[in-house]
């Protein structure tokens, strides 16, 4: 059963433009030029129970706007949305008790009080029974390894610790649907990894449905089977992550470590074999069409001083970049 259904969702913002400088400021006091920004422009998708979907796209692609609409913070300009069978922007309490939105850049915790006070407040707001609250809190604090920080003033916590507390605050009512917007932003590599592990476990253990946006491809690679790529408010790709690789990575990279310097003829001949992506002696990277990779590799072995050779799929980052730089995906 589809838990989340989005049909032709669009959200336009009206923004006004100000000419630079003081004269521009004065002019904009009297006369403002407005224009529409199409933050989301006809987006459709469905998500089933228990899925963990990655939402990727550059800044301003419309990811956050979509999540805000699914959470009921924004009224859409057009289209239909149903989450758990509810229309989000009606903000019914029965709906609100079943989902959570976590934003990496903002916080809901009371800054001057220990995190536990914010948890207690959320427990009351979401009307979580006492026993349920205690088991949930215990489990989450254990998983995130913050048991001895619960009574420390939030302002004294590090960013990573605070982010974990934010997660607990958002999960204290055991939401069925979870929207995570850049949950790892600003965290160091170790903390990012821990956060990822937690999301993975949480998804599996509680069968919760999760939409995750992130700038870090590592997050997506490790967590999501399915991705939705969005740019300029439109969906460019919706499917399995491995499908993108198969479908759009029509090239492979051949990395060669050379024995000795190449002569001029050999260098010129390289161009006929494939695209030279990098050539700093002794390392050479060639990009070749998928179907030619074996032939080119054997040719390299035959007529070049090869010490080592490797054929690799393109990096996910590269593929995604290619998707955004205008290759028609439809």
């Amino acid at each position, binding site marked *: 059963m589809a838990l989340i259904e989005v049909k032709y969702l669009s959200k336009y*913002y009206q923004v006004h433009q100000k000419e630079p400088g003081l004269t521009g400021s004065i002019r904009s006091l009297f006369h403002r030029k407005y224009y529409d920004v199409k933050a989301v422009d006809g987006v459709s998708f469905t998500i089933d129970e228990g899925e963990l979907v990655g939402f990727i796209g550059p800044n301003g692609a419309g990811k*956050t706007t979509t999540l*805000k609409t699914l*959470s*009921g*913070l*924004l*009224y859409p300009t057009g289209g239909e949305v149903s989450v758990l069978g509810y229309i989000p922007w009606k*903000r019914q*309490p029965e709906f*609100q*008790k079943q989902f*959570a*939105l976590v*934003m990496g*850049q*903002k916080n*809901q915790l*009371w800054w*001057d*009080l220990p995190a536990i*006070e914010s948890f*207690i*407040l*959320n427990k*009351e*707001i*979401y*009307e979580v029974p006492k026993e349920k609250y205690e088991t949930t809190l215990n489990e989450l604090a254990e998983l995130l390894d913050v048991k001895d920080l619960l009574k420390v003033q939030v302002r004294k916590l590090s960013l990573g610790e605070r982010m974990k507390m934010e997660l607990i605050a958002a999960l204290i009512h055991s939401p069925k649907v979870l929207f995570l*917007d850049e949950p790892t932003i600003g965290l160091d590599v170790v903390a990012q990894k821990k956060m990822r592990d937690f999301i993975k476990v949480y998804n599996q253990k509680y069968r919760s449905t999760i939409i995750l946006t992130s700038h870090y491809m590592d997050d997506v690679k490790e967590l999501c089977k399915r991705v939705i790529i969005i740019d300029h408010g439109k969906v460019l790709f919706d499917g399995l992550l491995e499908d993108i690789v198969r479908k759009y990575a029509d090239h492979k990279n051949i990395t060669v470590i050379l024995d000795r310097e190449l002569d001029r003829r050999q260098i010129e001949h390289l161009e006929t074999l494939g695209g030279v992506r990098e050539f700093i002696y002794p390392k050479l990277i060639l990009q070749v069409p998928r179907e030619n990779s074996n032939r080119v590799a054997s040719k390299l072995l035959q007529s070049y001083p090869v010490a080592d050779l490797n054929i690799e799929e393109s990096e996910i980052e590269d593929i995604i970049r290619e998707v955004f730089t205008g290759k028609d995906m439809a």
Partner: protein
Amino acid sequence: MRKYLTVFTVSWQNGFVYRLNFLLWRLRSVIVIITVYYFWDAVFRNGGVIFGYTRDKILTYVFLTLILRSLILGQRSMDAAGEISDGRLSNYLLKPLNYHFYWFTRDLADKLLNMAFSVIEIILLYFILQPPVFLQTNIFILIYFLLTVILAVILNYLLGNASSYFSFWTPGNAWGFWFLYLVFQDFLGGVAFPLDIFPKAAYGLIMLLPFPYLLYYPANIYLGKISGADIFQGFIIMLFWIGIIIWLLRQEWRWGLKNYQAEGR
């Protein structure tokens, strides 16, 4: 409504974090009381009746409005304007929580905390200054006085939030509306001086506005200066404004949320 009770206790805890701040705030209110007291004491040095007030009554008015101020006018909900402007409002919109009740509860927590301290201060000051105060003994007047105080708390909350909610349209500019409201409180609400020192015609007009019912009206009910039909008229006007502003708030909230962009998030 246990959730609002928890909002209340968390508010108090938050208030206690900044002990020094709180202490200085209380010190300020004591200094204001002493200054205002000596000012009016000097005006009435030679006795007599000015603007219809005797020395006893004006000093009681001053003392009473100072207590009532912390109860009726003290409020934190001006922070709502900031929350709407910078997108923190989103936190509340996601939850099964009524934003208006939330801030009303936080205001109430703040008021009662300040009130508790000001009662102690007033008792101390009473023994130090030994002012001749007027004690109202009519039980009906006292009950009606209490009712007007409760209504005034509600009225002030509504007016303040109506100002804050302009943030939906002019993010960051709602302070302008707040400032205007504070000026109205001071000059038309009876904070700076009792309103009956205005000329009769002006006084009549002012009493049709919501502001006099914040402080001036309850204080004068206590002093027994308002009686008969004026009591009834005042009560009706108060209820009328509360109704109007509730309606206005609901419109602001409804249209404001359509305009809200959850920015900075």
